[in-house]
């Protein structure tokens, strides 16, 4: 039997899961994962997730996009090849606004998505939990709590006892995958 990824309990409902997580935290476990088929109210807090930095990244992306967009227009119209277009001034900044707006939104949106994926470590096509029995129901109607083997308070027997205590459907060992 290879190295262990963690011990996983299959739980019936969202409330039970949140409860379980709270107790796990109380029991001193820190390296725990909770899986649900939809975002569960309060689960993130329970698991000790401190707010994401995605909004900041998005803001940065937006600013970069905006500045870049405006500069591109200004540079090409005023510096690179100035031409008299219909008697309009070279730096017709009011007419540069629409494109600037669009590049701003584009920059922000693209950053937001990339940041989200990156922070979530996605894409990750292989993951130990996929090997866990019934885990395919994690995207349907089942909820899972997994105490990771690398938690310094993890000890196979005690962890199992702890999980059994919260009356899951079943508790299984999740082997680490190579």
């Amino acid at each position, binding site marked *: 039997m290879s190295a262990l990824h963690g011990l996983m309990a299959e739980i019936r409902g969202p409330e039970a899961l949140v409860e379980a997580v709270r107790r796990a935290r109380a029991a001193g476990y820190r390296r725990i994962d909770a899986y649900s088929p939809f975002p569960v109210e309060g689960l993130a807090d329970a698991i000790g997730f401190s707010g994401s930095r995605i909004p900041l990244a998005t803001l940065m992306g937006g600013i970069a996009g905006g500045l870049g967009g405006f500069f591109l227009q200004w540079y090409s119209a005023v510096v690179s090849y100035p*031409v*008299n*277009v*219909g*008697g*309009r*001034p070279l730096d017709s900044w009011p007419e540069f606004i629409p494109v600037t707006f669009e590049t701003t939104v584009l920059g922000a949106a693209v950053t937001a998505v990339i940041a989200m994926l990156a922070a979530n470590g996605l894409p990750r096509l292989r993951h130990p939990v996929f090997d866990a029995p019934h885990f395919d129901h994690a995207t349907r109607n089942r909820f899972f709590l997994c105490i990771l083997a690398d938690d310094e308070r993890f000890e196979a027997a005690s962890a199992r006892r702890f999980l059994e205590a919260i009356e899951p459907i079943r508790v299984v060992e999740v082997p680490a995958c190579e």
Partner: protein
Amino acid sequence: MSEPIRLWRSLDELEAGLAGGPSAFSAARRDFLKLAAAAAALAGAGCSRPVEEIVPYVHPTGSAPGVPRYFATAMTLEGCASGVLVESNMGRPTKVEGNPAHPASLGATDVQAQASVLQLWDPDRSGAIRHRGAIAPRAELEAEWHDALAALEARGGEGLRILTGYTSSPTFAAQMDAVLKRFPAARWHRWEALHRDNSLEGARLALGRALAPVYRFDAADVVVALDADFLGEGPGHVRYARDFAGRRKPRGGAPMNRLYAVETAPTLAGAMADHRAALSPPALLRWLGQLDTALRGEPGAELPLARAAARDLQAHRGRALVLAGESLPPEAHALVHRINAELGAAGSTVAYVEPVAGDVHCAASLRELVSDLGAGRVEALVMLGVNPAYDAPADADFAAALRRAPRTLHQGLYDDETAALCAWHVPEAHYLEDWSDARAFDGTASVVQPLIAPLHGALSRHEVMALLAGTPGRPRDFVRAQWRGRKAEADFEDSWRAALREGVIPGTAFRPVSATARRVDFTPPPAVTGAWTVRLRADPSVRDGTFANNAWLQELPKPHSKLTWDNAAFMSAESAAKLGVRTGDTIEVASGPGRVEAPVWILPDHADGAVTMALGFGRSRAGRVGNGVGVDAYALRTFAAPWAAGAAVRKVAGRHVFATTQNHDRMEGREPVRVVRADEAARGARIPDETPKESLYPPWTYDSYRWGMVIDLNACIGCNACTIACQAENNIPTVGAEQVRRGREMHWIRVDRYYEGPAKDPRTYFQPVPCMQCEDAPCEAVCPVGATVHDSEGINVQVYNRCVGTRFCSNNCPYKVRRFNFLHFAAGPAEPPLEARNPEVTVRMRGVMEKCNYCLQRITRARLETDREGRRIADGEVVTACQAACPTRAITFGDLADPESAVSAAARSPLDYALLAELNTRPRTTYLARVVNPNPDAQREA
């Protein structure tokens, strides 16, 4: 412009060129490749290009490749010559300009002259000598006719007949003498579809001999034109237009003239008239009678306009002029001669000269030929440059008569209706390929010199005459011999060169003949209510049909109807109502032996009770372009009544969709054309400037030239010369009737026509509209790729190779002067071969927007020249194509930055205004208001 040329060289060059030899041909090849690559290159925009060949001359030519040269020659139309300067690019004539030194041109041209270069390059032109339809070698032709003529000679030429149109060529006349000397019994017949029989006959009646009037509009204060379109057609009309316009300046110089026009169908003269009456031909004659009565102070003149005109004429004795149009019967002409005599016009505003095409009565001459043909008295018939099988009167039934002739020869530009009925057909050299000479309306002679050797192995008319006379030789030698006279070669050479250089032979104008007009009794026809008259007239574009295969002319909108690719039965709204027809419905017109079905076109300024139809359409062997365009009105024509005849008109089934370039006639209170009365203008009336004074933008500075244009609506007669000149200069394609119907014509400068005033007999205004070259151009701001932008001289340039064809610019152009290549028009079926195009102007591909750019290529040429000489471009050094062609100098172009320039002066005129100024586009092109000079007396009468 014109430069001395050394004949022996340029000619050899040319002939060598067309012999497929090195020089001109290879030159053509270069530009051919250049142009052929154009489309590809436009598409490529820097992508892979084919490896191009450069083909140098074998013998140097002295002219640097790519530098155009100009040669003076003369174009003959209906027997009268007008001088032209022809631009030649590497041995290929590409553009016709007027010859300032020539009295009939003074630097301007009519539309036919502009289009003649396209005719030269027309691929449908007859390409070979044909015997019974089969291509035959020249030797065979000469052999057969040599023997035939020998036989005829033995009988003194009995049965030999020669038929030509009007000709004013002294050389030709001399050759004809030689022929008639050889064949004493031979006869020379003349037939010109647009003949001047009536006027000559009228002169015979009144003056005792056939004389032609030469008018001096510069001396005329009051002009009465009776169905006489002296601005649009007839001998000297281009010159007359200039003189007439010269007398319509409201301020400074001679007092402004006043024109009364009485006519059936609207003409250019009618549109310029200060007083106009639209009358059917009989009514028109009655009006003349009234005028005469009024002039003689006899009672019974109840027509107010006639009375007013009479008083006006008498008030300006010696400075008055009455004109009779060709359609008036001889008696009317005679009466008009008499009236002019009594008004002291003769000698002051009208002079009489020998008719340049000789004293000949075409109708009589052709009638005689036809009857002789019918009687089998014709052994051999030689027809030079005529097409009677198409344009002879219906009652001549020439085609049938022609079949009776045992031996026939036809020479013409095209293998046309007549050629098809002749045993022999010989292609005729185009005037740009031929040596000859010709006289202008006033007798001034010019030498016609070729710019290129005959393209299709065509023969000169003089060569055929030489064949008949049995005196072979080269055309050039005949012409030289004619003009050398008794001079010795040596001292002749200089005058010869001068004549070729200047395009006119000094001192050859006819001396006016003093003639006293006697009164011949004239009784106008009685009024018959409900009677119809059909009025036949030459088409403003294709004339008698000679130019039917010319796409530029076919697509040129008729001045009044803006109709293209068609003729129609023009009539007034009232007449149409009487028949219960609308524009596009079909009517049947029956007159004399013939009847035609034609679609109706309603003209608000047409006379009631009359139908006007243009000749020159419904050709069957004109060529791919001209075949089957319009209906053939010759079917209604008779010897007796060539221009106007009683007719039966009825509505028949059938609708026709016309191809017109202007769908809306009225100004809708928007005043694109501003009109001022002469007296106000004289008092310095000013057109208010509606340009908003404030602008959001800081102004751009134009530190070098500021090109601008002023168009004088008071001088514009709406003749379209500018439109077609622009087409020739800028490689503008024609699109064909179907595309015109779709609204896709390509003219860069269009002539708008507006009606103002009552629904019946409104005033007609013409307004040429090129690109306005706005300084705050709306078109530029919306182009996503910057394909249309301003250059540093303020020209709104269109960069074809950058254009992607969003057409946003056209949407945003309030003047709608932009033209789009919706399809690949430049490769259209009616397009000239690439050799004929202007190598200085890019050929536009499909999907590209184009428009007027003030003839950028001409500005550039001037800039490069002057820049090399290290000086500024002088005023008048750049002449746009439209400006050059304009008979009345209505267009002024130049540098607005130079306060001394003509254009600046014009722009300062109180009558200057900008089109749609309120939109604040700040156009560089502005207009001078139209000035009308009504007779207060007449208005009181009316």
